[in-house]
């Protein structure tokens, strides 16, 4: 390739890959598009014939996946050299489909952004805290498809009450509510929920007589969307048993962490100097496309702090261990460790099957799941905050 063939040169930060390929496509260009980035281990190549990409190559790999990866090369430089292409075709789709799909994957966080630090499971919209350090959890945009009716509560009204039965599910359309647990010693605020947050949990889909685990009170005038419980239950019961168990297992963690939070407030929490007979499970060594289901023995999820261990929750047979990126689970391997008992046994569960099932869920159910994992992340953070605060007061 000689310099004289180069007909177009520039930066993808100015003209992004989608625009560039549309431009080259519009003029029916044939040639090689070379991408170079200081963050890459070498140049990337896209082979174009008559305006359509036919192959992409990077290092010793080529094909459609490599092409998609290039959408993450946000600040690379490009050169297009016009030349005849004699090359095997590995990409069959036309350019608009490739572009739209590539951008969709970029938006869905399925493509790594080159040069941008890879952030594990984004903790969306949970950095908000009020003056007292209590987190305010917001949810994604409300999907009105499952909203049957709207309810209004005035400031101070209790929407659900701890230990009372109830299966109603709401999504917050407007306003803020407080979630708290009451113990004989007093009450502990766990979190605050705002627009897009859900009241009522996935657990209520399991049993007809669901006991509320906390009280929810309106802090402002609150507008709630009443969710179609039966429609959600219907959809839920169509899920595979395995997926249901995964969700209940996440919910189970949330309930336990919430309890720990409440205990911590009254200094009734145990902090372990060591994990005794329990051995650490190297969760980062679980393959990316697998999680573990416990078949025997026990496991404890802990947060290490100052050479001590704070217990977040205990897991038993039927519970799951591992990172589920599309559910943005938040404990292991990034922010917690798992220790297992001597008689621990587990089986591997394929994540791709679960992911496919997840993709087909309605937006409301996806939002509910996301809300549960967000609450788990936030409540685990809250536990650490409470412990820190009580320490600094001592």
């Amino acid at each position, binding site marked *: 390739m000689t310099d004289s063939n180069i007909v177009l040169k520039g930066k993808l930060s100015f003209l992004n890959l989608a625009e560039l390929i549309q431009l080259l496509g519009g003029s029916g260009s044939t040639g090689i598009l070379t991408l170079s980035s200081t963050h890459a281990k070498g140049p990337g190549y896209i082979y174009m014939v008559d305006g359509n990409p036919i192959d992409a190559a990077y290092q010793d790999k080529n094909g459609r996946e490599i092409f998609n990866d290039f959408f993450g090369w946000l600040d690379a430089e490009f050169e297009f050299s016009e030349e005849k292409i004699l090359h095997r075709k590995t990409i069959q789709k036309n350019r608009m489909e490739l572009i739209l*799909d590539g*951008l969709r994957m970029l938006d869905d966080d399925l493509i790594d952004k080159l040069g941008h630090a890879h952030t594990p499971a984004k903790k969306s919209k949970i950095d908000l805290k009020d003056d007292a350090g209590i987190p305010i959890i917001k949810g994604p*945009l409300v999907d009105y498809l499952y909203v049957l009716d709207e309810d209004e509560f005035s400031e101070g009204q209790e929407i659900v009450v701890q230990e009372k039965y109830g299966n109603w599910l709401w999504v917050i359309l407007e306003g803020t509510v407080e979630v708290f647990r009451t113990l004989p010693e007093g009450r502990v605020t766990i979190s605050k929920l705002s627009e897009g947050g859900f009241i009522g949990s996935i657990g209520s889909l399991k049993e007809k007589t669901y006991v509320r685990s906390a009280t929810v009170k309106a802090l402002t005038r609150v507008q709630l969307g009443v969710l179609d419980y039966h429609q959600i239950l219907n959809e839920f019961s169509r899920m595979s048993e395995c997926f249901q168990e995964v969700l209940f297992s996440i919910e189970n963690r949330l309930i336990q962490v919430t309890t720990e939070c409440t205990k911590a407030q009254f200094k009734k929490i145990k902090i372990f100097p060591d994990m005794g007979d329990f051995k650490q499970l190297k969760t980062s060594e679980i393959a990316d496309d697998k999680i573990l289901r416990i078949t025997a023995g026990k496991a404890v999820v802990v947060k290490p702090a100052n050479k001590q261990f704070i217990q977040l929750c205990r897991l038993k047979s039927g519970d799951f261990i591992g990172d589920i990126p599309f559910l943005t689970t938040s404990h292991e391997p990034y922010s917690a460790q798992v220790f297992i008992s001597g008689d621990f046994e587990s089986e591997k569960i394929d994540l791709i099957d679960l992911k496919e099932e997840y993709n087909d869920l309605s937006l409301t159910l996806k939002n509910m799941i996301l809300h549960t994992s967000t609450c788990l992340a936030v409540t685990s953070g809250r536990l650490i905050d409470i412990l820190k605060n009580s320490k600094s007061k001592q």
Partner: protein
Amino acid sequence: MAVINLKNRQIECKLVFYGPGRSGKTTNLEYIHKAFKKQVIGKMISIDTEGDRTLFFDFLPIGLGKIKGCDVKVQLYTVPGQVKYKATRQLVLKGVDGIVFVADSLAVRREKNMTSLKDLHENLLKMGLSIRKIPLVLQYNKRDLAAKGLPIMPVKKMEHELNRQLQVPSFSASALSGEGVGNTLTAALKLTLQSLQNEFKWAQ
């Protein structure tokens, strides 16, 4: 901003179907793709974005004349509703020449319509375009649901809430059966081509 392709003497312009998720944008496009087969060039591209799909195909409007001796090719797109699809939305809206806003007639979706229209306004502003100037047509979709006993908003109310300030052509439709889809498309194409004609006159 239409693209003039000198190689094949074609003017390419872009018509985007905008609106809240599940208001029927894709249903509109699917109906057009099926009912106006002869005018469709190439296959319909469908990308699964969360909430709804993003569709794209090329369309040759017939009987609306040429511009400066060039054929007009229209790219029809739907835009993904979800906030996170920023890159996709930017690409689709870039250089848009005309917009069909598909509103949902279901009473429970009232707020969604308004939020989406506000989003459109903001997204256009970011590209230096004004919702008042760009060729725009409103469609009140899913009118057929009234027959199924579902609560839908009267057209008058929707006009009042969505079109009071814009005062653009609006159509009732049931995209599932195709009713009103053709009228919406023709009106949008007419407005878009007229606006392009005017642009090219200025350019002379």
